[in-house]
């Protein structure tokens, strides 16, 4: 089932185009990565999904139905720039935000009890927010985002400001909710967490979607036929035995063994490479070097921007 679908979204602010024909489709129970450089239009798209602002044209569907005001209660949103009322007590504040999401007083109280116990923060209930550390406040913000058990969770840079232990805590909560069927849109610049958590991504650059699809396929799409070969033997032997069909990109020593990065040229296969090398060196391991999301991000954006120069 598709939880959220945006079709041909256009949005501009007084002459500046923020989104241009953007379409995304987020399947239920997946983590969807929303990537792009600063100012590409991610926040605008998120705000449209949250109905904070409306698109100039295009449509958004939530579980197949046109997005409507009551859907805000099915969505949890953790903005990148997030804050709390400093003078309010933690408990009161959580109760307030939960009720704004449509929970009854009792239900909010019950769920907050659960969460506060689980995160071991019950002692903070009567503290003022201004007395909390940044990490503590972040935890509270995460709790208020997910408290109403939204079907769609939108997290904008959720790990920024967390120490590794708390980041791990949040990561586990995300995975737990995902396993329970929650759909998550994750906007982040941390490509490590994209590779780890995301099932699908889109990359938005200059208001347009320039890349999208399942993470594995995107990475395959950007493969450069580069292989890492670890071997025992003389580097010179290896170099000599390579023909013009293979390019030695890099060669260095790793421990007792040598490592070579070799690119297959034209349509040559790994088998052909191996058959050439087998007689000369002792092969220890070989693996394809599929580019990481970080490299793909940079490559895709650079290629796209080059056309405007």
């Amino acid at each position, binding site marked *: 089932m598709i939880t959220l679908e945006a079709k041909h979204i256009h949005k501009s602010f007084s002459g500046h185009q923020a989104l241009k024909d953007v379409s995304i489709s987020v399947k239920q129970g997946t983590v969807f990565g929303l990537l792009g450089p600063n100012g590409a239009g991610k926040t605008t798209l998120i705000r449209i999904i949250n109905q904070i*602002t409306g698109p*100039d044209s295009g449509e958004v569907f939530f579980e197949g139905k046109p997005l409507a005001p009551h859907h805000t209660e099915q969505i949890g949103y953790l903005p990148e720039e*997030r804050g709390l*009322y*400093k003078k309010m007590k933690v408990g009161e504040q959580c109760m*307030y935000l939960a009720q704004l999401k449509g929970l009854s007083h009792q239900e909010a109280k019950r769920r907050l009890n659960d969460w506060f116990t689980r995160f071991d923060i019950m002692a903070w209930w009567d503290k003022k927010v201004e007395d909390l550390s940044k990490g503590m406040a972040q935890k509270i913000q995460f709790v*208020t985002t997910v408290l109403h058990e939204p079907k769609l969770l939108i997290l904008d840079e959720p790990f920024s400001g967390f120490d590794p232990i708390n980041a791990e805590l949040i990561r586990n909560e995300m995975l737990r909710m995902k396993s329970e069927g929650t759909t998550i849109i994750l906007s982040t610049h941390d490509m490590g967490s994209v590779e780890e958590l995301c099932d699908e991504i889109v990359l938005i650059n200059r208001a347009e979607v320039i890349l999208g699809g399942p993470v594995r396929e995107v990475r395959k799409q950007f493969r450069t036929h580069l292989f890492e070969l670890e071997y025992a033997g003389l580097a010179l032997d290896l170099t000599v035995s390579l023909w013009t069909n293979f390019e030695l990109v890099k060669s260095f020593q790793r421990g007792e063994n040598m490592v070579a990065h070799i690119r297959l040229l034209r349509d040559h296969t790994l088998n052909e490479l191996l058959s050439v090398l087998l007689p000369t060196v002792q092969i220890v391991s070989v693996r394809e070097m599929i580019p990481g999301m970080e490299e793909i991000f940079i490559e895709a954006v650079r290629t796209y921007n080059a056309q405007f120069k």
Partner: protein
Amino acid sequence: MKKIILIIKREYLSRVKKKSFIIMTILGPLLFAVLMFSAIAVTMSDTTEYDVLIVDQYGVITEYNSDKSTIVPRFPDQFIEEGNLRYAFTKDPMTPEAFKEGFYNVMVEVDEISIDDGKCNMYFKKYPAEMIQSKIRSSLQESLERFRVTDSLKLDYEVYKRARVKVSFKEINIDRLNESDKTREKAIIGFAFALMIYLFIFLYGVQVMRGVIEEKTNRIVEVIVSSVKPFQLMMGKVIGIGMVGLTQFLIWVVLSGIVMTIGLSFFASEMTSGAAVVENAQVIQMTGGTDQAAMMQELMNNEAINWIFRINWPLMIGLFIFYFIGGYMIYGSLFAAIGAAVDAETDTQQFMLPVTLPLIFAYIVSATMMSNPESSVGTFFAVFPLTSPITMMVKAIVGINPWMIVLSMVILVATFILFVWIAGRIYRVGILMYGKKASYRELWKWIWYKG
């Protein structure tokens, strides 16, 4: 709707529960009264010693007393020395230099022409208080008059005094024949109401602005508007804070009601015991003992006080509430829009001026209406929506065509709907804009943004 009530509740409770609110609400009127009284007390307790020298070269109002061998006033019942005011008389003119060096701090010269034109030179080292001046003036005036009556016109002064008439008005409005009108006094009370609305709009309007800036700068606003519409958030804030103002006002009404009742019954019992000494037993039986109701009744028949009771207090309080709400909605939502358009309170200056200008103007108009309550300019500003919440307070108590009130109310409501709409449009864009200093042109564009 449920959510807007949640917002109102938060805005209201978080302010009403504050210690500063409770203290201000209870101590506010007390503080105000203390300030007023101490201001009066300061002017009353002028401790400067006034040694006044009357120089009467030609013996117009003074004569030589051979017994005391000094110059004394011809009519000793004038020039009464009291408190810090003392007189001395001389025939010898004193040069300004000598006065400057000398002991006296006020010197008045009376010459033979003073009898005709009443003009005297008053020299002073420090400008004398108006009360002192008027005492000296009236002493001189009576003395000169007496001189003219007895010496020039050769009349008996007692006869002249009997012939004198002092004219005063009993003010009667043609629409209220049976009561003496107290237009000026009423206008002052109306001005007190106007002042209160002015202060409340300012005080609570600025609170709205601060609240919006707080939400914007600590970035909670984005979370909130993912749950509710920006317009709901704005209205919730404006209404919640407005209700704090109304609560404060109602507490003040109740408090002053209590204070007035206590004050009046105290006053009444004072009068009762005073009467008991003077009047005969029958009167004591009638008014004495614990029966203060009769005394209260008498008090209400007292011409000097009873106009206060004739003011339609429920109407005034009703009008106050209506005009406070109307005016506050207009200015409160404008303040909210200002808060949304800036990043910090220090940036609000450029937008504050055009919003506060009509408020201050209304205040000035209302103040001038105390001396001319029925001016037609006042009527205009009592109908004009940006000034009516303040100016109408004076107009309504003095008396205005009821249709004017209705017209003013209708215009006020229409205006507040328009302004709330405009403010809402600016607000919804502004709260999500950071780092950019908004210009008026930009605000204009925001109003017309879609979605």
